[in-house]
């Protein structure tokens, strides 16, 4: 029986002070519940998060209490 293993990409959140005009920016209220939960967990746990199951992609800036750019780990 064939099995498939899915390994989630790891992402990092990096706090940024400014945003480029061509950046994709999302407010935290635009994140779905699962993404929001992982986002906050990542902030508390060293800014690493698994992309699987979230709709975050590298390059996106998320507006929370600070601005965070999503980057590939």
């Amino acid at each position, binding site marked *: 029986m064939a099995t498939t293993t899915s390994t989630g990409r790891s992402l990092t959140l990096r706090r940024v002070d400014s945003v480029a005009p*061509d950046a994709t920016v999302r407010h935290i209220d635009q994140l779905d519940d699962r993404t*929001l939960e992982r986002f*906050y967990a990542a902030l508390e746990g060293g800014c690493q998060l698994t992309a699987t199951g979230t709709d975050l992609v590298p390059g996106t800036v998320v507006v929370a*209490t600070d601005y965070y750019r999503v980057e590939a780990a």
Partner: protein
Amino acid sequence: MTEYVIIGDGISGSSAAETLREEDPESSITVITDEGEALYNRILIKEHAKGKLPEAPISIHEEDWYAERDIELSLNTHVTGVDTDEKVVHTHEGDEIGYDKLLIATGGTPTQLPVDDSDAEGIHHFWTFQDARKIRESAEAAEKGVIVGAGLLGIDFAAVCGAQGVEGKYLMRGDRWWRYALSGEGAEIMHEGMREVGVEPVFDSGVDRFETDDDGKVVAAIGPDGERYECDFAGVAIGLTFNTEYLGDIDLEQDNGILVDQYMQTNLEDVYAAGDITRFYDVLLGEQAQNGSWGSAKEQGRIAGVNMAADDEAEEFEWVSSYSITHFDFPFLSFGHPTLGDEHAERKYSDTEWRRIAFKDGKVVGGVLIGDLSPQSKLKQLMREQRDVADQKEVLLEETVDLDDLAPPQEQ
């Protein structure tokens, strides 16, 4: 070919247009808006006003987006009337646009303070991108600000003052900010956040009138006790007036908003409504409710689109909304209907951490989380499941909420 007309190009109208195109590829879709620009991100415009975010990332749709989907977009177009018998929308240019199904998604307009000189130069209301541009420009040049409106919209002005270095006085009618959802303990955390950015809350206050200079520019706000607050910038956010004037005397059921069922249908055949303007039937709450959050408006637009295309009650609106405040060092999240309910539980955990949960008929219907947002998904889950948990408040107020600690649901 079915002809759909959508009045309003906010997130609900745009979401409906996108859904309709997917569900009914051969249809005709027209979106009418009185604004001069296509859909933008309304929850990010406060960041622009604060001076932190450039304009470009706030735009969501270019006009090409509509053309690529064969959606007719009419910018700068005021609807002057709707004839629901003839199924025609009238515009200020004298055009008549026929429809088979109509969606009303025109939201609201900030309510002006009913006092003298409330339209003076330097006094701002905050709703559109254009408002945000003017607020940014005005705040950048200002030294002293006054804010009126102790709610979720007013606090954005406090943040603008803080970010732009404007010394602010936040005049509140009661003894705390958002008194309908926060107790004194919770509100004090927010007050401290305001103070830290240079905005001083002033309680049991308000504005009786504004003073202006010879050029008509605001120079002060006068409180009900005669106290004079110098200002060259003022922000007023005392609520929204829903944009329904153009609907005239059509027999549309309204009650501080357009009444719709869980399918976004009004009482008039083939007329739907979505977004801030609705008072919708909330299936989780079991009664009509309102919500001004981005996610709720987007989902209402999608649901309206699905049901309009299906010409049926194909999908109902079921949603737990979220509204965040990101202006301070600590996060703030309001979910569901925190101002409703028949009982509540709350606890303060630290100088920046507080939680309140609202219950109705024993079920979670909303809440406010300050500082620690980790329980949000579990509390929302309980709300969706409509579990009877009001008798287990201690479990829900534990610093770490573990739903396994709740007694199992009783068989009905």
